[in-house]
């Protein structure tokens, strides 16, 4: 284990990718992701990293190169943000359907229009249904650890993995973190292998037009139709929750860190009021929780570490003793409510205890999220016995508007 390093979140990500021995880096620069790819290109140029850097002309091509690399049996990596993620959207669905073990860091940033380079989660949320696993890191150490574990997860499940971390809040701030020794990573992460890798000895066309119905191929092997393959992707994505927990345990043996791969609760054991959030916002809430506890309120914060596959039963069970649940999020499903809030509400429906739910939208396009305003909104929700109609209670409340 290295001594503590003090560096930016983007450099933390690049160091993890170097340790993972990624073999092909294809990326197009976009704020605030740019320093990740700059650092990786420096490491390749200096010979500290043995990889091919493909300077592409767009994010669509970046993902296409990763698809090609993985199909050829080599470990790829890319990173992007915001509109860059949206530009590769078509290829994201392709990578998932083709079951390619690709890892990508998404440095979360608001989506244009209007242009914003600042942080929120709308980029990741908009790609929720692409068939990718979505991990959210809360600090620099989690960027390192989650990225390393993401390679293992992608390669075991053959489902691509997005590691999300907040633009600027994490990407450009400096924090201490540790990195494992290369030998430890090598023991944890075996050589890359893609089950359906291209092989000149056995020519075939991959992912050609696939009929609605199953068929017998030229060798009389039963081959699923489109719907069967998609069902398998869904089922195996659900199974990936368990695999992610197992990987976390393996990683703990190697590095001594981990233990909260799905949810990371803070002071939730006896909490009547539980805040749910993703990314650095969940860590910011720890200060809020401490202050509210000092005021005698039984409050906790539960960080959600993996958004897709959605760990619905784990979350619902963790919230069974809460009276109120406040979901704070930096993105929403326009015309309805916070995407995470909607998911949590639906996860709780089959369970006997359905706490009162509150939805808060914060920090879109980098709007400041003062800890004081979090403190006040949580406290108000805790102490006021609000008389609202069910329809009113289900509406998201926007924090920090300046209209």
């Amino acid at each position, binding site marked *: 284990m290295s001594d503590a390093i003090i560096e930016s979140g983007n450099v933390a990500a690049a160091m993890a990718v170097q340790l993972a021995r990624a073999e092909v880096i294809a990326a197009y620069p976009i704020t605030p992701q740019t320093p990740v790819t700059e650092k990786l290109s420096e490491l390749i140029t200096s010979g500290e990293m043995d990889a091919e850097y493909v300077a592409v002309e767009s994010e669509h091509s970046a993902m296409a190169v990763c698809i090609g690399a993985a199909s050829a049996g080599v470990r790829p990596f890319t990173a992007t943000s915001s509109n860059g993620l949206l530009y590769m959207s078509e290829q994201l669905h392709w990578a998932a*359907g*083709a*079951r390619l073990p690709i890892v990508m860091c998404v440095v979360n940033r608001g989506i244009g229009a209007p242009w914003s380079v600042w942080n929120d989660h709308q980029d990741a949320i908009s790609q929720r249904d692409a068939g990718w696993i979505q991990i959210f890191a809360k600090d620099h150490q989690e960027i390192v650890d989650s990225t390393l574990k993401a390679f293992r997860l992608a*390669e*075991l*499940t*053959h489902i691509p993995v997005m590691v999300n971390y907040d633009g600027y809040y994490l990407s450009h701030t400096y924090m201490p973190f540790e990195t494992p020794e290369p030998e430890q990573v090598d023991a944890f992460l*075996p050589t890359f*292998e893609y*089950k*359906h890798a291209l092989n000149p000895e*056995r*020519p*075939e*066309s*991959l*992912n*050609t*037009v*696939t*009929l609605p*119905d199953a*068929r*017998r*191929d*030229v*060798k009389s092997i039963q*081959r*699923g139709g*489109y719907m*069967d*393959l998609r069902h*398998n*992707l869904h089922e*195996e994505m659900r*199974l990936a929750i368990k*695999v992610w927990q197992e990987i976390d345990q393996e990683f703990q043996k190697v590095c001594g860190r981990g233990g909260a791969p799905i949810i990371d609760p803070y002071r939730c054991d006896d909490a009547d009021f539980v805040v749910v959030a993703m990314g650095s916002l969940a860590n910011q809430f720890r200060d809020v929780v401490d202050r509210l506890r000092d005021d005698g309120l039984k409050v906790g914060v539960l960080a959600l570490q993996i958004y897709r596959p959605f760990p619905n039963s784990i979350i619902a069970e963790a919230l069974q003793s809460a009276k109120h649940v406040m979901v704070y999020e930096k993105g929403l499903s326009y015309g309805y409510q916070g995407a995470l809030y909607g998911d949590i509400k639906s996860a709780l429906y089959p369970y006997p205890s359905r706490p009162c739910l509150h939805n808060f939208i914060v920090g879109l396009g980098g709007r400041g999220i003062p800890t004081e305003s979090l403190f006040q909104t949580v406290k108000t929700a805790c102490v006021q016995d609000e008389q609202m109609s069910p329809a009113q209670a289900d509406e998201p409340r926007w924090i920090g508007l300046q209209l």
Partner: protein
Amino acid sequence: MPDPRFKILTSASTSGPGDAGRTGSWRVERPVIDMDRCIPAKTGKHACHLCWLYCPDNVVSKDLEPTIDLEYCKGCGICAQECPAQAIEMIPDADFIKGADRE
């Protein structure tokens, strides 16, 4: 190395009859070969075979008297177009199944 609990189903195809499903059901016209015009049939030599070469579904045999696997022939007519001896005519499939329909 994938986890053995995962099937990881993907779609792939190799060149051969039937790899795109029962494409014979798509057919509107079927190719019928006139063996009096067909070059290998007429000469008794393995020559030409352009229908075998061009068929996108690999359903034409490379015999002196070529046969067509109607299970998979989708009736595209490429063989008829390419045949240098105009030995292949595309005939409406309906002409062959009319009798069956009436029964």
